[in-house]
């Protein structure tokens, strides 16, 4: 099997699985219980939270709490301002942002261009959501310079950054960023599904989405899952130590595909994260290619896994200015640092074979 859909979810490496099972086996106590066993687990969790903050270079005053996913994290931050402040988002962002904007009484849509984002930030905007790495195009935003310019224009604005696709891949530096909150996800970096996090400046008040036993300072109640937390941390540790090496490796395999298929289009390759490569093969519907590839046990996506059910015109591609004629021809290839050159080589050979095999059909049509 060749798996090239890591932007959707990435499998758990052995170390992560071990961290999970060890935690489940040895540290199964409910962290909220009064005994020493439980307090030991609580201590471990507190330690991990600190490690996370360190890894993100968070300055003093930043707090951290776990959620079930990045979707929940985005929702929880934005719900604080629903109906109170004007929201600015980008239409090509993840559904967990754009769908909230739909129920927002006052919201605006910005564009991905740096200058246009700055221009859209007016005095009346209360919240802005930026996506560090877009999940479909892979476009990276320079959060450091963007946020300082935004704060210069509008110091009161709350800046929330969705880091689901960048954690463990591209540096997140909360010391350099002028952000108020960020959202994280575990399963995009080989952590378990079902856990994410919010990191926020404690100066800003964040309300809980629901109520319960007061865990995590009441911000996100419900019994903390130490196995998920331990595995999330294990996955992060594997990545943060080799951020640059991984980046270069991924860039190399990404470029290899671009070179081999230079006759096709890679509209975002220049500004995108090397972990996500959007490739457009005109004339052949991407769903057919996906099925031909899946017959060879090669798995990738056509659009984000969350929006691939929608047929025809694609709002996200529109937002990214992909010509309409190509909306059905988009392949999203996404890598992990574990993706090997051999795997990418095999993907290239197989795709070339499929395209050659389809060629007689296409030639007759032309």
């Amino acid at each position, binding site marked *: 099997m060749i798996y090239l859909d890591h932007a959707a979810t990435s499998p758990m490496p052995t170390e992560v699985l071990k961290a999970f099972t060890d935690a489940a086996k040895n540290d199964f106590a409910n962290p909220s219980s009064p005994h020493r066993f439980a307090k030991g687990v609580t201590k471990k969790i507190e330690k991990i939270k600190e490690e996370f903050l360190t890894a993100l270079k968070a300055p003093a005053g930043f707090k951290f709490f776990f959620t079930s996913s990045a979707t929940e994290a985005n929702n929880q931050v934005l719900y604080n301002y629903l109906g109170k402040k004007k929201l600015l988002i980008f239409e090509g962002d993840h559904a967990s942002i754009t769908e909230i904007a739909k129920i927002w009484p006052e919201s605006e849509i910005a564009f991905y261009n740096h200058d246009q984002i700055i221009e859209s930030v007016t005095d009346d905007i209360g919240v802005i959501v930026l996506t560090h790495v877009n999940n479909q195009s892979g476009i990276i935003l320079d959060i450091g310079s963007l946020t300082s310019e935004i704060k210069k224009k509008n110091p009161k604005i709350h800046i929330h950054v969705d880091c689901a696709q960048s954690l463990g891949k591209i540096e997140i530096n909360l010391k350099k960023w002028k952000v108020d909150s960020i959202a994280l996800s575990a399963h995009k970096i080989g952590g378990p599904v079902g856990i994410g996090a919010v990191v926020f400046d404690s100066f800003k008040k964040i309300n809980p989405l629901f109520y319960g036993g007061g865990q995590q300072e009441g911000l996100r109640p419900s019994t903390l899952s130490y196995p998920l937390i331990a595995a999330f941390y294990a996955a992060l540790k594997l990545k943060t130590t080799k951020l640059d090496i991984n980046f270069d490796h991924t860039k190399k395999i990404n470029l290899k595909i671009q070179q081999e298929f230079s006759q096709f289009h890679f509209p975002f390759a220049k500004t995108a994260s090397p972990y996500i490569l959007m490739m457009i093969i005109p004339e052949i*519907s991407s*769903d*057919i290619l996906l*099925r031909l590839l899946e017959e060879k046990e090669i798995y990738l996506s056509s659009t984000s896994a969350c929006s691939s059910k929608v047929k025809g015109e694609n709002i996200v591609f529109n937002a990214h200015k992909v010509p309409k004629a190509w909306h059905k021809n988009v392949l999203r290839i996404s890598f992990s640092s574990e993706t090997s050159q051999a795997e990418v080589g095999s993907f290239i050979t197989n795709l070339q074979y499929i395209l050659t095999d*389809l060629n*007689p*059909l296409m030639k*007759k049509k032309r």
Partner: protein
Amino acid sequence: MYRELIINVDEMWLKGNNRAWYYKLMKQHLLEVIGMHIGHKIAKITHENHRYILHTEEDLTETQILIFTKIPGIHSVAPARKVELSREAIIEGAILELKQMTLPKTFKVVTSRPNKNFKDNSMVICQEVGHALLIKFPQLKVDIHHPELSVHVRILDDAAYVSVRKILGIGGLPFDCNGHLVSMLSGGFDSVVASYLMAKRGCRLTFVFFHAYPYVGDEVKDKIYQLTAKLMPYLKFARLYIVPFGPIQKQISDMCRDDYRTILFRAYMMRTSQYLAKRVKAQGILTGDSLGQVSSQTIHNIAAIEKHSRSPIFRPLIGFNKYEIMALAKTIDTHDISIIPHDDACALFAPKHPVLRPNPEYFDQFLNENIFQAEMRLALDCAEVWHFDCLGQRFPHAKS
């Protein structure tokens, strides 16, 4: 609420010496429907001349009543009040029936009296019941020719039955009296309507869908399941074969002239359907062809395909217009499913200009030289086979 349902049969009275056989098939289908929709414990059925009477221990729901109108061979159903065999009881029953409905302006009484032992003849019953109703409901008038309401009185051996409502069924002939067809479903309007029409004529059906995976996604299968389920009220049971056909289509496309792709796909689907017909012991093939609707449905193309067919091909929609077909699809409630867009393999395979008048030499030669027997048998062996019951429920069919 009613606990008796009079079920009138359609064309079977035209039959001669073999009439009993038709009634047997009819009763078998009725028993199946009763078992599935009501339950044998609380429902039984009796046979009286050209009708069946359903007796239940619980009130029939509207859905339960209407399901009988979809059984092929049923002319109509009438929910009825069962009364004692006496003039007084019949009159009382008729009054009770009218009391629970919005009164019409005009009415008449219709009586049938197969039970000749009953002392009043039909004329007397009509007069007496009509008289009693006119006294009870003075606003009513009798109109023999165009009444708004017909009050039916049936004098049978065990009891008399009074009914004021008659619901027409689909008519036709009982399930499985007219042989077995392999019905080629496409997911569009036509093949489903064609299947309904032949089910109405008493055909047993085995459905086949040619799935061009990987050129078409698996989503289309859901549509085919839904359409088949919608046809099940008209059938006692059926099987559905989903035949993987992508590789064969690819092979044909690589080999043939591109303008012949569409018609050759059809020819090979037909050929595979014939193999299937042989396997399931069906006597013919059923398609939704309507003359000239698309390029493969010209007389030239139909003739070219027909030449390579060993069993008869039934095309009940051949003279139907698209709107007529869509209207029928609405009445059988398949319209809204057929209209759901689905991936079409043709997007990749469709030639710019499909051939309208195939060159017989080329077409015949291609079919004769490329039998694809092994490929087609393999496709059938790998087919996904489902058994559908009359409720539209689907079960994996154990392969023999």
